[in-house]
């Protein structure tokens, strides 16, 4: 199973995402923002970092990278896409996910081990979790406050598109404690916390993040 990891100028957690794919039993494939070449991957991860230095708005420039046109097209055909942190910001800027990520309410960059509640276990990236399960994975961002108009939030909630909610504390002031959302078809998931940093006992607060990467191996087969 080939899982692409897209590197933009300023991507930082691409090596981590590739490692997580490998530990889950997949084959990580490096993708370059400037190429129109998805290299026959079965799914794509947009990793964390500061693509283009977060200039203009976080994710705004990367969302217009050449390869993102291919990602959007394939995503609309059902290819699983995961956006982590900056990748989530890119997905929102690219219109694949609703809402926007703005500066944390307290204005600080914040890195902590965060409890999340899994609200949906039927997306391409969460099949190995149970609905209602609590997981601990790191969160680290300066612009991670999820916002959308109230009506849109109501609609998202109604459609069950909130995948993760911050639990035992909201690290950035996100509306309704939303940590991650999904597309209508459940194939595209974006979240601010970093599952790729919780895949080894040695280096993470837990191995709770591994489930993202094992889930997609099955989901991509099923597709």
């Amino acid at each position, binding site marked *: 199973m080939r899982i692409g990891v897209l590197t933009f100028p300023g991507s930082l957690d691409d090596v981590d995402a590739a490692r997580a794919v490998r530990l889950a039993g997949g084959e990580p494939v490096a993708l370059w923002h400037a190429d129109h070449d998805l290299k026959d991957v079965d799914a794509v991860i947009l990793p964390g970092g500061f693509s283009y230095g977060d200039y203009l708005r976080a994710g705004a420039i990367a969302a217009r990278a050449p390869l993102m046109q291919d990602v959007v097209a394939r995503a609309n055909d059902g290819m699983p896409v995961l956006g982590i942190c900056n990748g989530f910001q890119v997905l929102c800027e690219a219109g694949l996910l609703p809402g926007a990520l703005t500066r944390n309410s307290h*204005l600080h960059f914040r890195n902590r081990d965060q409890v999340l509640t899994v609200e949906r276990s039927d997306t391409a990236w969460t099949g190995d979790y149970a609905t209602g399960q609590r997981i601990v994975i790191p969160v680290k961002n300066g612009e991670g406050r999820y916002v959308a108009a109230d009506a849109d939030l109501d609609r998202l909630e109604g459609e069950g598109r909130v995948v993760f909610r911050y639990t035992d504390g909201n690290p950035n002031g996100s509306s309704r404690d939303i940590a991650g959302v999904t597309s209508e078809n459940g194939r595209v998931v974006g979240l601010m916390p970093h599952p790729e940093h919780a895949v080894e006992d040695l280096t993470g607060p837990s191995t709770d993040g591994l489930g993202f990467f094992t889930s997609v191996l099955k989901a991509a087969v099923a597709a």
Partner: protein
Amino acid sequence: MIDTVELAAKSPDDEQPWAELGLKSDEYDRIKSILGRRPTTAELAMYSVMWSEHCSYKSSKVHLRQFGDLPHSDALLVGIGENAGVVDVGDGYAVTFKVESHNHPSYVEPYQGAATGVGGIVRDILTMGARPIAVMDSLRFGRADAPDTARVLPGVVAGVGGYGNCLGLPNIGGELLFDDCYAGNPLVNALCVGVMRHEDVRLAKAEGLGNKVILFGARTGGDGIGGVSVLASETFDEHGPAKRPSVQVGDPFTEKLLIEACLEIFAADLVTGIQDLGGAGLSCATSELASAGTGGMHVDLDTVPLRDSTLTPAEILMSESQERMCAIVEPAKVDAFLAVCRKWDVLATVIGEVTDGDRLTVDWHGERIVDVPPRTVAHEGPVYERPMTRPADLDALQADDAARLPRPSTGAELQAHWLAVVSSPDGADKTWVTEQYDRYVRGNTVLAQPEDAGVVRIDEQSHRGIALALDGNARYARLDPYAGAQLNLAEAYRNVAVSGAKPLAVTNCLNFGSPEEPEVMWQFAEAVRGLADGCRELGLPVTGGNVSLYNQTGDVPINPTPVIGVLGVHEDVRRRIPGGWRADGETVLLLGETRAEFGGSAWASVVHGHLGGKPPVVDLAAERRLGELLAGLPGLVSSAHDLADGGLAQTLAESALRYGVGARLHLDGDLFTALFSESAARAVVTTGDSDAVRTAAAAAGVPVTELGTTGGDTLTVDGLLELGITELRAAWSATLPALFGAPEIAVGSVPAGTVPTS
């Protein structure tokens, strides 16, 4: 009208602003005698920045030679003199690490000063051919509740985090300490560590006639002009002009691209020499490259890409615009080099070439404006044997013994003093700071703050890794700079050892007052002598370092602050020892000997506002025995935490608070001494097999005292006091948020400098 070499030869008596550029009259005379004429404006600019204290080490050089005289170490692949030293950590891996100050810029403009401090040290590490893998920061501010600390600290922390986070480098530890002496002169010392294979080490030299000089990275602007001479080599005073234009502005995104481009350029073997542009900018890079090489160098200054077309040639040569590097490239490889830069959107320009002969020449608009022997600029600057005097107040200070201070005697008093030390700004929880740093990126961080040492995996297959600690207790160094430097070395060594690593090499950042004050110069010389002697005794090489002088406000210098970094190696990071207690029912053992030593202690400072007496006795042989014992303990102990500032009281609290596991303890002898003495060469370990630890300790010659058993939700000292973990945590974790704002409450009131301007 451009001041050319030709013009300078014809107008020997023109007045020149050498004093404004920070040169002394005898230094100016020496430049004239080297050149056989007056310098041009551009040459004067180059000499002034390169002969500044910051670049030339003119006051410290005669003392620093002691580090070079240390016995040969097989571990040292590249020693002092290059951008950073390189150490063999086994399996063909080489590690380069260095700590550097950015004190003065951080006071003037906290966010950018600190950010570019990180950027500068990262480029030093990159220049050696290594991939930077982690950073650390050692910070000092004035009193925690002083108004100016509220201005400087949030900006510095946001700057260290803003730059390092955006580069994708985990911050794995450091220090945050407060003292009145830093009120007008905070210290911002940043460390970077990088890893490469042995064969990938790069050096800064220009060789090969006809090879091209390529400037790449950011455009050159008007920021940071004279940073090294005007800022770093002068004392601030209240009435002086604002020096903000001397501070550089950082762009970490460009630096991230520079890192990836450089690593790709190294991998394809496209450079023969490389140098970063830091302090003194192009003046430094060109003269150092040419000086270290075999030939000369010619630069056509018109080709330098500028942000501001009105810059004069002297300003271009002095600018400290960030995120720039200079490479020496064979003509046949230039196209490939430029192609890599294009891929990463890095601007790269051929600005000159390596020439025959031994001159560094620079042209501007077709005229020669610089024609100098590069060694006289880069490596043969002035060297001073500054006068030294033992501080007049030192005898009285040492006689003012902290042992005479009123001590707590009842359980309630002991408890109050314990809480006071643990919740003091120096002892308190540092989460307010470290939450602003990414410690996870790259996925190899095994231990990070609040652990004693940062531990990073460098090979995912073999599990080989490194440990790093930074320590710089200035109270000890004020009382006795020789012993103080050794105690800092000992603490960093101990912090690396408690993680289970084998200490391997030393770096340093020596922060002192004005070298023109004989008492400061004495403190500096004593600290260097102490560090050199200490390294000799521990068998560790000094791989390099940084000197920051003129850290004073008016005529009051800071306490001497030698910050010492120790690097250790883990053959298998899975065997690292964490610092906190995690399991109930384990035996708590104190390793090492406790004496009644309170001089310079946290207790004397926090409870009595006192600094006096002598610092704890230095016993490096005992440190070495403790270190060797700890190296053999992985598997036997489940936690290890060193004792330092705040003594056993601080260590027990931190061990318990890490995972919320308490302990029942019985302390024999004088309880006050047991809790608050700061005797060195000690650590607390917990174990399920105390007999085995005792046996190992006996064999190593390390005294063992059983303190009690872990478990419960209190720290209880039999028959005397009982501290609830919840109560302890509340006190410990409230201090910094109370001083600098609980982020959730701070919405709407933004401390100056906390919001990145980029």
